[in-house]
């Protein structure tokens, strides 16, 4: 018997993340940050984080010391931002053993705290990030202004310095062509929604990221509350679309979704893009109970077969074809194991 706990709203919400941007008040910001100052940022933060209650759970990873695949793997697992890799020479990350808390160093801002949890758990994610923020500011003061709040390198983040976001899986809304309407409503609420994977406006795997836009003029609690409320509404909307698709023709829905299971079970070559579409189908099927696979397991597997993570797993540089072969093989084996348990 495979036991697992479903996080709140995990049938639609894959994960919740809160990031806080901070800068040490006496050090120059990103554009003027010399290697010496960048090192000072790392030293201070490492010192302060290690001295916190759970400090020993963190590992320091300097981006310059990691292979390219290992860096990509961190991005694919949402432990660091893609932007951290724009500053590979100076940037670093402290990652907690559970992977739920990360401190990014020398990205666009000196320090970015991140709380990450499965499902819709924005409040707890925020609490985790704020707790670290409070512990650190007691040792080294962060740049702060009473009118403008926490000062960030880019004025678009100043104020709370907080970006809260959720990753949503919206196959039924997408199938019904409702995403346009959702996006319009979202924009009116001061929130933004965009495709998580894929270039431009294409949303691979029907995965979308919903986040707050403004950081100045609203409290952290207010933003979290508004984002949670909007997420809950989208969740309800998506669920009712799934139900109505089932009501309309359950056999056809099952047939369409389970064919993707068949492909994943027998394919010998699998591109990342094709996989995202198949993954969307089997996740949808699992949420409807057509397929007895645990959602948390599917989501972890999804991240594990992204290009960088595959490379780390292979332990060497692999060609695109080799990665398609390896992806197909891992999926066959691990999906089989997931449903067997």
């Amino acid at each position, binding site marked *: 018997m495979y036991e697992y706990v479903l996080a709140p709203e995990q049938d639609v919400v894959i994960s919740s993340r809160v990031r806080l941007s901070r800068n040490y008040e006496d050090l120059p910001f990103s554009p003027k940050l010399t290697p010496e100052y960048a090192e000072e940022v790392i030293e201070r933060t490492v010192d302060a984080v290690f001295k916190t209650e759970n400090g020993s759970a963190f590992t320091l990873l300097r981006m310059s010391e990691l292979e390219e695949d290992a860096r990509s793997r961190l991005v694919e697992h949402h432990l660091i931002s893609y932007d951290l890799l724009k500053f590979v020479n100076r940037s670093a990350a402290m990652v907690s053993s559970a992977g739920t808390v990360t401190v990014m160093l020398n990205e666009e801002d000196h320090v970015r705290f991140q709380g990450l949890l499965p499902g819709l758990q924005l409040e707890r994610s925020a609490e985790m990030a704020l707790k670290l923020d409070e512990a650190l500011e007691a040792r080294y003061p962060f740049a702060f202004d009473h009118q403008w709040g926490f000062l960030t390198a880019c004025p678009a983040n100043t104020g709370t310095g907080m970006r809260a976001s959720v990753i949503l899986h919206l196959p039924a809304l997408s199938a019904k062509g409702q995403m346009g309407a959702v996006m319009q409503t979202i924009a009116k609420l001061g929130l933004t929604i965009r495709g998580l994977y894929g270039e431009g406006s294409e949303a691979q795997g029907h995965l979308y990221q919903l986040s707050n836009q403004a950081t100045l003029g609203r409290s952290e*609690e207010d933003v979290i509350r508004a984002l949670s409320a909007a997420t809950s509404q989208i969740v309800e909307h998506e669920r009712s679309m799934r139900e109505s698709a089932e009501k309309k023709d359950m056999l056809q829905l099952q047939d369409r979704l389970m064919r993707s299971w068949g492909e994943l079970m027998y394919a010998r070559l699998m591109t990342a893009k094709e996989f995202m579409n198949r993954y969307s189908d089997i996740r949808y099927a699992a949420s409807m109970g057509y397929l007895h696979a645990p959602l948390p397991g599917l989501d972890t597997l999804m991240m594990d077969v992204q290009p960088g993570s595959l490379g780390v797993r292979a332990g060497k540089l692999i060609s695109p074809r080799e990665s398609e072969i390896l992806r197909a093989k891992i999926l066959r084996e691990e999906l089989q194991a997931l449903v067997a348990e």
Partner: protein
Amino acid sequence: MMCEDCGIRPAKFHLMTIINGDRVERNLCPTCMAKHQKQIPGIDFSNLAGILNSILENRSSRENEREDAEYEGLVCEQCGMTYAEFQKCGMLGCANCYQAFKTPLNALLQRVHGNTQHAGRVPGGVHSGTSIRMNIDRLKEKLQQAVADEEYEQAAKLRDTIRALSIQLERKESDIKVKPRDRLESNEEEGANDNV
């Protein structure tokens, strides 16, 4: 409403694209709109976007340009960054830049966030209830000053902010009353949920 691409400029266009049968809509500013249009093969909208842009922003852009020219020469004494440099890279050089470029930044922050007054937590205030209260106190002082100076428009803005903050504070305090039990419950599932 801000541009969904850059988040810096106000959105003026609603772009709808259909890719693999999925309809995707985005609200964009003229600059990002032009970038997007260039990616659509066969049609070059960049000119059209430019024309529309100049119509839409006609008056304000001329004013903006004049203002920008006025501020370009500003220099931050601490890090040496100029306002022109900031406009190019979009990032400030140090905490003091916020003071050095105060006037143009105020206008920029108003455009980006629709607000120029921080309402969140302040350092040292562990519970944000404290920070909201501190903000209210400070704003009340400002309000008195504004009334004394007969700046009624400013006073009205401050009054509205104070009102909004007071409502937040009330809500916050009523939240705290129910919180401990919630926390107990959520702590129990902690271990199980930490694996993703």
